[in-house]
């Protein structure tokens, strides 16, 4: 019996199992337990949530392996961790720790402004951020087995996530309507691998699971992103920077399952305490915008 580990099916498959779920940023084993208890389908182990990274400034790097290990020991759901864009050694370290997914993330300070990690080289699957279809397909071309919108992390403002999801979905619809002979030019214009452009035109969706991330702070935000067509939700600062993380975490999980039922959404949006304070995107200096990291 031929057995193969770390195949594309297996890497992509874990993301399939996370669909319709919420992945929450956590910085301690206690927070990880709260997330698991609230119904998170995975956690992202970090030293600081994006809002704090933004506030602290300086260079943000992979978390201390001890922090990640303690979180892995605390929960049975999958644990993800972030590596800097292009920092393949951070990724090697995370793989050796046994994390279940690596996020090559713009939330951390990029280690390489030109090249992303060759993700095919790894047995552990990767998720990457994207603002448009071309960017998503470049990451998939490099081996990402899951995509998420970039949004603007740590802002509690959903506007950029909406912009990126609409952009990706709009470009998919555009490709679907092109005759075959126009797809090569579309690939050239998007800067995307031709075979993936053809595949998207056939499937009418990304060939991997596509989550929303970057600024989701309320149950309504989560349901909005689901109705716009994403497969699930990442919540970074939105939970543990809010007044009542337990209530908010549960409500966002429920909103992601029942995203199409306004009556239930009204019910779960009640009495969950104040959301995290938000930031208007225009007040963030261009060089401080995390979404412009990577290409």
């Amino acid at each position, binding site marked *: 019996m031929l057995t*193969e580990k770390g195949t594309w099916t297996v890497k992509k498959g874990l993301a399939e*199992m996370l669909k319709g779920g919420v992945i929450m940023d956590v910085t301690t084993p206690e927070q990880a337990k709260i997330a698991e208890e609230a119904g998170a389908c995975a956690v992202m182990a970090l030293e600081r949530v994006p809002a704090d990274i933004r506030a602290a400034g300086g260079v943000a790097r992979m978390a201390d392996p001890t922090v990640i290990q303690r979180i892995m020991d605390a929960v049975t759901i999958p644990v993800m961790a972030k590596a800097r864009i292009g920092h393949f050694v951070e990724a090697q370290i995370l793989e050796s720790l046994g*994390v279940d997914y690596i996020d090559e993330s713009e939330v951390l300070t990029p280690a390489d402004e030109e090249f992303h990690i060759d993700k095919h080289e790894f047995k*552990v699957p990767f998720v990457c951020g994207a603002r448009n279809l071309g960017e998503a397909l470049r990451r998939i071309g490099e081996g990402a087995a899951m995509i998420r919108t970039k949004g603007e992390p740590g802002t509690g403002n959903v506007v950029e996530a909406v912009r990126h999801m609409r952009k990706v979905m709009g470009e998919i619809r555009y490709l679907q309507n092109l005759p075959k002979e126009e797809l090569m030019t579309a690939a050239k214009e998007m800067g995307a691998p031709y075979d993936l452009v053809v595949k998207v035109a056939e499937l009418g969706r990304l060939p991997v699971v596509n989550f929303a991330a970057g600024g989701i702070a309320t149950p309504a935000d989560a349901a909005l992103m689901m109705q716009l067509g994403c497969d699930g939700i990442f919540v970074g600062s939105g939970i543990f920077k809010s007044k009542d993380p337990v209530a908010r975490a549960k409500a966002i999980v429920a909103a992601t399952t029942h995203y199409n039922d306004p009556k239930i959404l009204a019910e779960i949006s009640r009495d969950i305490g104040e959301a995290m304070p938000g930031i208007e995107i225009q007040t963030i200096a261009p060089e401080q915008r995390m979404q412009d990291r990577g290409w």
Partner: protein
Amino acid sequence: MIIGVLALQGAFLEHEKALRVCGVNTRQIRLPEQLNGLDGLVIPGGESTTMGKLLTAYELLEPIKQLAEQGLPVFGTCAGLIMMAKDIVKSNQLSLGLMDIAVERNAFGRQVDSFEADLAIPALGDKPYRAVFIRAPYIASAGSGVEVMAKYEEKIVLARQKNFLAAAFHPELTADLRLHQYFLNMIKK
């Protein structure tokens, strides 16, 4: 024929796709009232801890348990298998407790150890079945009423007990429809 697919979280769309190719109608199940009039129920792969909590939170656990005990055919894959087990080793997680099996969770290791393998499943014919295991469980022990249908390295990964079928792997992620077809045949009989 209408097959319900539990749609709280996980790979429910893939199960629906496979079932539709087999020629049956499907219905996503998120609320108790959606359980009325089903001919069978699929509990998909996903995160078992999450699914267990959501089953309780949305008051689906008891109604499903009742229907299953009255004879509704149920097919669980991966997290679904865990939900169907009477005993989840080293866990006090709530489950439907339909089959006399003890299940070990994440039993093959973390994601880096997830794998694909060819299984011999005599009930599906001679052709090997390519099975995808993702942070998969296995059946550590099974009661006398349980028919063991496949093993991988001596570990039970597919079993049937009366109207219940449970797989540790993900038939919804491959194009081989034999196991879905097998489940549908269970309903017809």
